[in-house]
């Protein structure tokens, strides 16, 4: 047999385990204890009263809403290379490229939209981006809207979001 | 209430069962037609029981229900077996059991 296969010992073959009832009793005891404690003093439950309280423990690795970064001169860092759209497993990134005329670069996105209703927040676009132009560091975890169209974020909106961990410029080409 | 409408209904049911068996080729429908005929007999037995005011007819009807259940189990098993063999519910396909080579 292949050495990489690890055989996990199987528990619960004894009569007591197979009867299930003692285990069920133990489990019920635990849940009931929690229920009893919490019913008798619900103020002791340590919960976050969202939305009055907002979470403060969002880490840098948390994949929040996307944003588009800026270059040093505050222009869009994206060069419309379609890497993110290619990597995207749910095909939710819509890019239309155009010639860039301000002399900074050759190519830029005319339209850059993310359909956040289709997005699965996997972060592949961030991984794929060669220009550090798209990031998911806004820390925004809830996106609300009144219509489906509200959830399609256009380039302007994506550029307007600020990074939650210090507004950093694109570090491409450094 | 008179028993005649019950008898008429049972007769019609029985006839519909026969009609179903004759006219349809779907195995399931044939099976359900047989069930229908048994049930119509059941109805007649229940009416008899009521006509005599004792439970004998009902008891036979109850035994019939048991038979219906047994028949259902067997018939459905046969249908599943047949369907596994030929992937069809068409009763005409199964008309050549005597010729081994066609199976």
């Amino acid at each position: 047999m292949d050495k990489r296969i690890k055989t996990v010992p199987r528990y619960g073959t004894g009569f007591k385990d197979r009867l299930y009832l003692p285990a069920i009793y133990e489990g019920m005891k635990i849940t009931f204890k929690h229920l009893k404690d919490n019913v008798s003093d619900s103020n002791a439950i340590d919960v976050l009263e969202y939305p009055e309280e907002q979470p403060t423990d969002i880490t840098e690795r948390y994949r929040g809403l996307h944003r588009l970064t800026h270059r040093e001169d505050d222009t869009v860092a994206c060069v419309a290379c379609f890497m993110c759209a290619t990597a995207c497993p749910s095909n939710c990134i819509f890019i239309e490229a155009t010639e860039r005329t301000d002399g900074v670069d050759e190519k830029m996105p005319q339209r850059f939209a993310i359909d956040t209703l289709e997005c699965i927040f996997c972060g592949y676009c961030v991984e794929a981006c060669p220009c550090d132009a798209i990031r998911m560091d806004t820390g925004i975890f809830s996106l609300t809207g009144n219509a489906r169209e509200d959830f399609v974020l256009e380039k302007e909106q994506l550029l307007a979001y600020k990074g939650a961990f210090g507004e950093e410029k694109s570090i491409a080409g450094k | 209430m008179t028993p005649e409408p019950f008898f008429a209904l049972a007769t019609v049911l029985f006839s519909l069962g026969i009609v179903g068996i004759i006219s349809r080729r779907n195995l399931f429908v044939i099976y359900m037609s047989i069930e229908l005929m048994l049930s119509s007999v059941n109805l007649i037995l229940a009416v008899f029981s009521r006509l005599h005011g004792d439970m004998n007819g009902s008891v036979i009807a109850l035994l019939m229900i048991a038979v219906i259940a047994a028949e259902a189990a067997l018939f459905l098993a046969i249908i599943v077996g047949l369907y596994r063999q030929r992937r069809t519910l068409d009763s005409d396909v199964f008309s050549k059991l005597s010729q081994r080579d066609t199976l």
Partner: protein
Amino acid sequence: MSDITITVDGKELTVPRDELLIKILNKNNFAIPQFCYHDALGMDGNCRMCMVEIEGQKRPQIACNTLPKEGMEVRTRGEKIDATRQKILELELINHPVDCPICDQAGECKLQDYYMDYGLYDSNIAKSDKVHQRKHIDLGSEVMLDQERCVLCARCTRFTSDITKTHELGIIGRGDHACVSTMPGKKLDNAYAMNVVDLCPVGALTSKDFRFKQRVWFLTSTPSICHGCAKGCNIFIDHNREKYKDDTVYRFRPRENQQINGHFICDTGRLSYKELQEKRQLESIFEAEPVEMDVATSALKTMLKMHLKDIVILASPELYKEELESLMRLSERLNATLVCPMESYYDERFGDDWLKSPQRAANAKAIEQLGISTELSQEQHIGLLMSFDHRDFPEIKSDHSVTFQTHIGVDADLILPLAAYSEVAGTLVNEDGIEQWCKQVIHRKEPLYSVREWVRLLEGVES
């Protein structure tokens, strides 16, 4: 000349004596990196990428300047070869900006591929030390030049000097500053200029028309035939169906066929893809009002029944042979006259002695073969004129007129949409009588009726 036997990577090959080694290797699917060699342009030997090891020779040799010898032993892989290739590639990439994200060639770029295979991933030259040259220069004829990305393979200059003999492009400057350019103030200007875009192995020459429209890895290439003229050049139709959008054609590329067009096509044909999606007739119009399909169909049938005796069917000479045949059967059934006037499809100015034929009707030969009349007698009274996308339709007088249009722009009692050639499959006969099969390329979300589907719809209308 007799064939000889050589050994490549331990595999014995029987090859003709006078064929270049690189051609042999390419034919037998050995991966030989190459920039300057092209089957149509021959060898040049300047890129030095096609290095192979030959038994008995001290150093690796370029395969494109080597002829096979009896018993020759060639190795295309191995540490030594890989190291050589890596070094040559480093040389090619010294001044290359490595801007693949914004380069339109990315995905079909030889340099990119070889870089992934043999590249020295960390450059020895800092980005700031690279020689910067001119970027996005409009060469004319819809070709854009980026001198930084050029590897100086000279395919484009050889194309203008050897093939078109127009000599617009040349390599100027020396050393680091050598670059492809036109004469000052002159433009790249010939009818085949855009072939340099295909020839260019890197992103130096890109098509202005296709630039930034779509990344090439999204595209599906389907082999087809150009409908620009009766030459019948072989092409690839590159198309893609984006999310929420319809199947769209983005470009035509030439497809090699030595019998007809070699490796190239003309610019007119190349840009004719735009017709496939611009100004398309998509809805039925009955008496100048857009109507539903079923209304239009019943109107068509009523009109046909009204004029069963004097119908004239105009068939476009650009229809496929199968479609023409079904129109012949239709005209027989309806007792109608089937004609196909050809004058308006002939354009003397368009033709040249290479790939452009003055006969602009793609299937003119099939009309001839099928014996469809090309003359419409002037005195015949036309009750119902039924045109299948024919150009002359507006000039012919009739009581009633029905036209099946792929494109908008004509006026008739009843206008019905027709599938364009990319949306149907069929046979084209080119002017030399070569029959070529075209696949259906585009699958619209809401398919339009083809000629044959329309004919099928009209079955039984005569009785």
